[in-house]
């Protein structure tokens, strides 16, 4: 214990390990943070302007924004930085856009290890570079300890619409085939097993990855016949299909056998009492495609690694509009409902 009556110097020692409230003050400490951590990891010059100018030519501009609050911040297959980049790229892609630029904003809790902020930023930069979508501007705020949980990340993206395509949640038509680009239930089970240290013998990795190149290949092959694109993130495939069924006023029929759930993810779902159809994904998409174009689109998907497992899982009907039906393995039919609230692991 120090003697409280003793005089002490109020100037803090230089802090190089953790984020301080002062790092968000707009002063010199903040400039250092932006220069030494953010700009260094992003591999850019410190950004002097508060807004970036992006040349999009004359095409339609598509924009999207998303915030990321995932716990744990680092998980098998990714982290909050790469996830924030992939998430917004994918949201743009689902409207048929080629992503052009991203912004990156942090809300940081005082006390966050600087190394962690560095790692997250480096990961976001890597993800953006791999995807070929530059991070052009951003923002950093620091809040008091306890006012946030570590770090929250927001990315905003702009993109330009593919000239031949207008995919929309409302464009599903009777007879369209339902295409799924790959296995489901990986991201959610990876997060849950990392969060709860469930100790599976082998690790489940998140499927977090960018889907814009896959979408570009699909649109080049199918153009306007690709009616609807959606990445089934929170709420899983079941919630995504229900939203689309409702927005397009269309019935969705899928076949249980056709929906691929990797064995480890299936085992985790069994253990936790979760429905794989309700588990979040970050690296697959579902598409409604006109039957005449489905084969060409599927073929184009197979040329991309992220679409290698693409397959038809069902079709659209004008019966039971707004509802999703699934033919079970035994030949019965059940309604697939949206997830209600948060997924709660059951007792036994």
């Amino acid at each position, binding site marked *: 214990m120090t003697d409280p009556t003793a005089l002490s110097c109020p100037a803090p020692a230089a802090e190089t390990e953790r984020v301080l409230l002062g790092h968000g003050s707009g002063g010199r400490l903040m400039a250092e943070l932006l220069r030494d951590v953010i700009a260094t990891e992003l591999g850019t010059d410190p950004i002097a302007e508060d807004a970036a100018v992006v040349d999009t030519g004359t095409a339609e501009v598509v924009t999207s924004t998303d915030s990321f609050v995932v716990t744990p911040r680092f998980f098998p297959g990714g982290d909050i930085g790469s996830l924030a980049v992939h998430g917004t790229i994918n949201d743009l892609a689902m409207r048929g856009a080629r992503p052009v630029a991203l912004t990156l904003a942090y809300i940081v809790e005082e006390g966050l290890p600087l190394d962690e902020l560095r790692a997250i930023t480096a990961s976001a930069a890597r993800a953006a570079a791999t995807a070929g979508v530059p991070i052009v501007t951003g923002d950093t705020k620091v809040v008091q300890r306890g006012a946030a949980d570590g770090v929250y990340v927001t990315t905003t993206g702009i993109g330009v619409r593919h000239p031949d395509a207008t995919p929309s949640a409302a464009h599903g038509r009777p007879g369209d085939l339902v295409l799924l680009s790959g296995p489901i239930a990986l991201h959610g089970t990876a997060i849950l097993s990392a969060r709860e240290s469930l100790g599976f013998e082998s690790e489940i990795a998140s499927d977090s990855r960018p889907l814009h190149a896959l979408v570009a290949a699909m649109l080049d092959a199918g153009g306007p016949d690709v009616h609807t694109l959606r990445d089934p993130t929170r709420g899983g495939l079941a919630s995504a299909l229900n939203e689309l069924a409702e927005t397009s006023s269309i019935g969705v029929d899928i076949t249980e056998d056709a929906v691929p759930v990797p064995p480890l993810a299936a*085992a985790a779902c069994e253990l936790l009492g979760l429905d794989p159809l309700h588990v979040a994904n970050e690296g697959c998409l579902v598409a409604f495609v006109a039957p005449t174009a489905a084969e060409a689109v599927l073929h184009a998907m197979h040329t991309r690694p992220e679409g290698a497992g693409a397959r038809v899982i069902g079709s659209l009907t004008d019966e039971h509009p707004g509802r999703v039906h699934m033919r079970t393995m035994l030949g019965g039919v059940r309604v697939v409902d949206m997830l209600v609230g948060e997924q709660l692991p059951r007792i036994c």
Partner: protein
Amino acid sequence: MKYLDEYRDPVLARRLLADVHATATRPWTIMEVCGGQTHTIVRQGIDELLPEDVRMIHGPGCPVCVTPLETLDHALAIAARPEVTFTSFGDMLRVPGSRGDLLKLRARGADVRVVYSPLDAVRLAAAAPDRHVVFFAVGFETTAPANAMAVLRAHALGLDNFSMLVSHVLVPPAITAILDSPDNQVQAFLAAGHVCAVMGWTQYEPIAARYRVPIVVTGFEPLDLLEGILLAVRQLEDGRHQVENQYTRAVRRSGNTAAQDAVRRVFQVTTRTWRGIGPITAGGLTLAPEFAEYDAERRFSAAVLDTDGLGSLENADCIAGAILRGTSLPTDCAAYGTTCTPRHPLGAPMVSSEGTCAAFHNAGRTR
């Protein structure tokens, strides 16, 4: 997946279904006891693929559903206390008590956490000596051994900041209560495989003999259930009433004796109220006197008494009791799908994925 896919084979399933169709010559009513079995039946649409005259009644085997309202109200009162970290399996959190549920209490600032094992709750208590950690111990014979182990572990660690709110229930007395009820329609039971994995099936032999009712110990996969139904129908057609084991890969006649020993050491049999059914003699477990210090109801008796003073109120529109006894279907309830949905449940069977109402609703069953 090994041990799963082979029990979901559609070709074998269709063969078993055809066998059931060929075997049943008269109407039969069979109850699957466990909510996990109900879930598989409804999800796979098995009940709709059976012969019209073979009727499945969905039993009371959802531990969340039969936890009495008073106990839930006690849980809410205890969890609201500032010194308490209240831990529970996930699906208890949304079950409505008389005044709110645990999730809403958490949103208002109470320290309510989901754990995956009671031992996690013990670890929390060991790591936070300034908190009092309460674990909500609900469930059948299946979860009792792990809960017993948690008490023994806390005892071995000398923890005085860990306790359990116990609402354990036992299956055989519930089966007897259903058979004794004047409006009983059940002619055969599919006993819950996981309960029998712990307890074995000797307890069911006197029931089968006394009530002349076939009991088939059954697993949870589609093929398990179809085979269990087939074995039950065969017994009914033959006029036999035996205990048969379909779930041979997990269950032995004597069960898991080490698990039974742990349960016997920590708990003792007591009369317990089942929500929707009422008090069942010897229908549950409570902590043995030796471990009474781990009884949360005793430790927080003041909070519990305050709550009891307010009274516990069931929703008047909810027919959960009739559904748990198997005398009504969810689709018979006026509130089903209208004022009562998984988003706004009026009663417990609409909350848990084990609950019959939720199983029906999730599968889109309509009136």
